[in-house]
């Protein structure tokens, strides 16, 4: 890690921009402390934060399971699971302050609820009752974005705008490995760099874009190597190691907040489930690959680590699980109610005030029989 000090000119030297040669790690796959040289000079997060992350990850995992179950009951139109990516989903959000902004994708519902958005509202899009079920302005969570990478320039613009207003807001944007191939990812990194916008780009490299494996997506040594070409400081981290994610993202957010410009962080992780409930992952990958990654499970790993450090009791674990269960049950119950959706809203929110044509059309379409 390059500490966020020194003048901007120096910090734009390649050596200050390139990522660590291998992913930063604090905890090995078995939950044991990783050797110091893998820490990349980062500081471990405070224990309290690590424990908070654990609780949220347990909750997030349970929520994710429940959401997948809801698709089977027809309560959700579709659900892209982030099982296996809990450390990224939770670690990312915990690095933010309330006044910061999160720009998630369709995959990041777990992050959205971690941020405090009501679960049922967060599931609005996937339930099909409105495009964005929560209020972005009050939650400071942008709508979950579907067109890949298109939200990245928004994050850059918002971050720059906030800085222009004298705020010290940071914008964190989640992108998939596939999303990095889109032109908008490139343009967003470049704008953020040129305008020194406080954006943290978090690439959750879960090794698949639906069925397309990483090797077909990029020939880069690692996606984090994209940063240097924009003058953007970059890092790669073991995305299944919550401690490492917290450490690296705390540093990245601090770097951005202090006016040193954007940071690109690649979190190496894995999508355990199929792309969505509607996908059939058996068509393009072996179960053995999934099994190997299951053994690097981020929740179990953090649990083992905290236990090993005598920082997590059985009672705390039980408690976390109970809380998660309650949350899941409450979510399921609330999702059982039929969504209420006022068709007239369709015409209300096209413009601040509907045009004459919209009035007419509304009356015609909603007034008609049937």
């Amino acid at each position, binding site marked *: 890690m390059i500490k966020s000090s020194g003048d901007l000119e120096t910090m734009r030297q390649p050596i200050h921009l390139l990522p660590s040669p291998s992913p930063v790690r604090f905890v090995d796959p078995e939950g044991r402390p990783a050797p110091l040289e893998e820490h990349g000079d980062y500081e471990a997060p405070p224990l309290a934060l690590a424990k908070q992350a654990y609780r949220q990850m347990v909750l997030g995992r349970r929520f994710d399971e429940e959401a997948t179950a809801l698709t089977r009951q027809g309560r959700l139109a579709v659900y892209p699971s982030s099982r296996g990516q809990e450390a990224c989903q939770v670690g990312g959000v915990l690095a933010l302050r309330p006044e910061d902004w999160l720009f998630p994708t369709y995959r990041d519902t777990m992050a959205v609820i971690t941020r405090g958005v009501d679960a049922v509202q967060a599931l609005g*899009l996937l339930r099909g009752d409105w495009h964005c079920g929560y209020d972005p302005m009050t939650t400071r969570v942008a709508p979950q974005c*579907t067109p890949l990478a298109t939200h990245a320039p928004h994050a850059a613009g918002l971050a720059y705008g906030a800085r222009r207003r004298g705020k010290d807001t940071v914008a964190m944007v989640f992108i998939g490995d596939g999303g990095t191939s889109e032109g908008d990812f490139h343009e967003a990194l470049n704008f953020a760099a040129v305008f020194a916008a406080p954006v943290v780009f978090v690439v959750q490299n879960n090794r698949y874009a639906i069925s*397309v494996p990483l090797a077909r997506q*990029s020939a880069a040594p690692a996606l984090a190597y994209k940063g240097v070409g924009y003058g953007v400081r970059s890092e790669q981290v073991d995305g299944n190691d919550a401690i490492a994610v917290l450490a690296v993202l705390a540093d990245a957010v601090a770097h951005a907040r202090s006016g040193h410009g954007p940071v690109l962080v690649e979190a190496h992780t894995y999508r355990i489930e199929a792309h969505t409930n509607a996908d059939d992952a058996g*068509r393009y990958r072996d179960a053995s690959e999934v099994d190997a990654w299951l053994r690097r499970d981020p929740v179990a790993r953090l649990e083992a680590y905290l236990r090993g450090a005598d920082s997590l009791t059985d009672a705390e674990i039980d408690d976390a699980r109970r809380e998660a269960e309650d949350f899941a049950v409450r979510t399921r119950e609330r999702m059982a109610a039929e*969504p209420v959706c006022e068709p007239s809203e*369709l*015409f209300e929110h096209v413009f601040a005030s509907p045009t004459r044509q919209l009035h007419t059309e509304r009356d015609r379409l909603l007034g008609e*029989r049937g």
Partner: protein
Amino acid sequence: MAVSMVQALNAAMRDAMAADESVLVFGEDVGALGGVFRVTDGLTRDFGEDRCFDTPLAESGIVGFALGMAMEGFRPVVEMQFDAFAYPAFEQIASHVAKMRNRTRGSVTVPMVIRIPYGGGIGGVEHHSDSSESHYTHIPGLKVVTPATVADAYSLLREAIDDPDPVVFMEPKKLYWSKAEVTLPVRTERFGQAALRRQGTDLTLLAYGPTVPVALEAAEAAGEAGLDVEVLDLRSLVPLDDETIAASVRRTGRCVVVAEATSYAGAAAEIAARVQQECFYSLDAPVLRVTGAGIPYPPPILEDHYLPGVDRILDAIAQLEWDEPVRL
């Protein structure tokens, strides 16, 4: 044998690939997965990775790369995963694919097919139900076709792949799983020809892609109320079959155009504008349009309020200045 539209499209690519090894299929998830709608199912397995392959996730790149391959004599068939996800390729399509032949006086040609699943009615979340065909029709140099039947799916796609020019091939998602008894290979009408799907004398319904079955259903319903409705399936938006359309409307004297795309400057507007011009003296009523609403495509739960359904078509028919009021 009952064949689905997806199977027919698959067979069309398969047969084209077998017939001409310069035909390649590529795009996002078209390989091992066989496409999110399984339209390319098995092509990689049967023709190898060289003939059907996945690309990085970048639509502009896909179309631009395909154009380069076309310059080397290949005939690329690229898939855009959903209508709204073709938008990143807009510049490549509008500024290059459509213009390359013209720019180079016929030297560089682009025998490319851009397959775009389009339209709604499948409960898709945002960005998965756009009808973008009208944008392509507004770009000179592109042919734009869309099947409504299983046989047409096969035949039009074969013709698109054989065509020496770029073809935007719009696939109605809603009809992907529709089936028909068809023996493949089959050849139907060529580009530029509309197909008569129902004969009638009182009124002409013009539809294409996903609205053809809706129009037919409306025609049935109107038939029960005593109106004899003709239904034309346009099939090919560019070129458009002005002759068949005009002949029908001149006979019936009344016309309603049905399309899912939002009305403003949509292909339906073009058709209405042409029909009133060509058939002015034969028209007993204005040409009406029944289209998607002038709003962003709604979330699934509300999409019926957007889509042109049977009721709205019947409403439009009822307004067609009949000598005696019709009750539909």
